[in-house]
């Protein structure tokens, strides 16, 4: 498997684990059948994400990508957070083994899903802003 040191660091000491009780948006992606669920909580002030927390059921890469994704969006505007790609998450972690790429996709989608929920709660249709949140490609295999 050979995870990078960064991955192991974020796995062993995940940043921003937990939940935000009075979150402004909560998103959950994945599916227990395939062994991964990510749940993201965001707190928004104006259009800035002031706090973010996650909970993840999944492999080492799932936990590390969740942790890294929260780091990358914390303090950013919603627009900036929406630009976050799974590639950026992977790069920030110094790469992932090929079979684990989908875990980073999950992290990108978890952030988007939380932002979607934030808009929905405000009575705004998130679809034109956030775009569709597609199923994990690997999921179709099951």
């Amino acid at each position, binding site marked *: 498997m050979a995870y990078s040191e960064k991955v192991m660091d974020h796995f062993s000491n995940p940043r921003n684990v937990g939940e935000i009780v009075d979150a402004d948006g909560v998103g959950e992606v994945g599916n227990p059948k395939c062994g991964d669920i990510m749940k993201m909580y965001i707190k928004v002030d104006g259009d800035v994400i002031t706090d973010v927390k996650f909970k*993840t059921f999944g492999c080492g890469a799932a936990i590390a990508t969740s942790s890294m994704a929260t780091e990358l969006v914390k303090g950013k505007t919603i627009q900036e957070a929406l630009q976050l790609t799974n590639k950026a998450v992977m790069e920030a972690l110094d790469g992932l083994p090929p079979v684990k790429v989908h875990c980073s996709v999950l992290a990108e989608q978890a952030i988007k899903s939380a932002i979607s929920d934030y808009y929905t709660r405000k009575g705004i249709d998130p679809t034109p802003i956030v775009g569709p949140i597609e199923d994990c490609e690997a999921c179709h295999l099951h």
Partner: protein
Amino acid sequence: MTRIVYADNAATTSTAPSVVKAMLPYFTELYGNPSSLYTVGQEAREGVDHARQQVADAIGALSSEIFFTSGGSEADNWAIKGIAHALAAKGKKHLITSAFEHHAVLHSMEALQKEGFEVTLLPVYENGLVKPQDVADAIRPDTALVSIMYANNEIGTIQPIPEIGAICREKGVLFHTDAVQAIGMVDIDVKAQNIDLLSLSGHKFHGPKGIGALYCRRGLRFPNLIDGGAQELNRRAGTENVPGIVGLGAAIQEATADIPGRTARIQAMRDRLIDGVLQIPRSRLNGDRQHRLAGNANFCFEGIEGESLLLMLDAKGIAASSGSACTSGSLDPSHVLLAIGLPHEIAHGSLRISLSDVNTEEDVDAILEALPPIVERLRAMSPLWERIVQNQS
């Protein structure tokens, strides 16, 4: 430095120092080709012959019935594909196996399916045991081979091999067993147990990696998997891996010298481990507790995923596994745990701890100390666990 607790002996074992010692002369002194006439070749030949006798003695076979292979996978492939191809000529194109065999068996079967063979996969039920009656019921006039493993590599369940052997003999169907996990743990007698073909692999009982054997009952003929030179009575080509063969012989002799004594010690540690681990809420032991390899313990912990668990155990110096080593690159949950009826989300959270005679009570202590807080920590960050707890309350 953290002390390393190696608790993945079902994946592979350390080579015993006595085995390495037996092998060493064959690298640099007795390095001749055993097929050669001259002295240095004949010395190598003697090493090979002696090891063949050691393997034969360990399972109640004749030395002429033992053929060395590169490991358990090759032995499985050779036996299954070989018998299938030999009997297809007589119109027998039906094979019987179980749903939770090792991939070396299952994928050989799949390759044969593509060639037009028909394969019946027997169920293994919640306890992880094949029912002999199911075997009897599945046998048809065109059945070429029954292949049922002696003991499962993930959940450690020991199959009713003597009963299955008797049924196959009575019905005149050939019987292969993958005994890779069973050697040194269970009394095996191929004659008394009516076994026609048996696979074994050195590195599972403190022998070297890359060497194994197929026992093949006298008189059974089927095509080679590896054609070429006249080695192994013309049935398995390739210059003999002399140090490996000598190591396999030494290791199997040690592992089978006193099976009751060996397993009693391992099982006592294993039982304390099981009792301790099952204190963790919402944990379960997978596979029958009685018909079980002495060293095997396989658990599921609801709400957490296996790989994270392993990585955290590794950080504490504990080497264990989830599923089997050869599938750890894949995203799919263990086919073995699915075969005993576990739902996907639970099958993802399994932990296999496998002990051998090199483990100690201190190893068990270390695992029992490290495991509960890790499970707790992973559950604390698991949204699935959150859901399970909410549903419960």
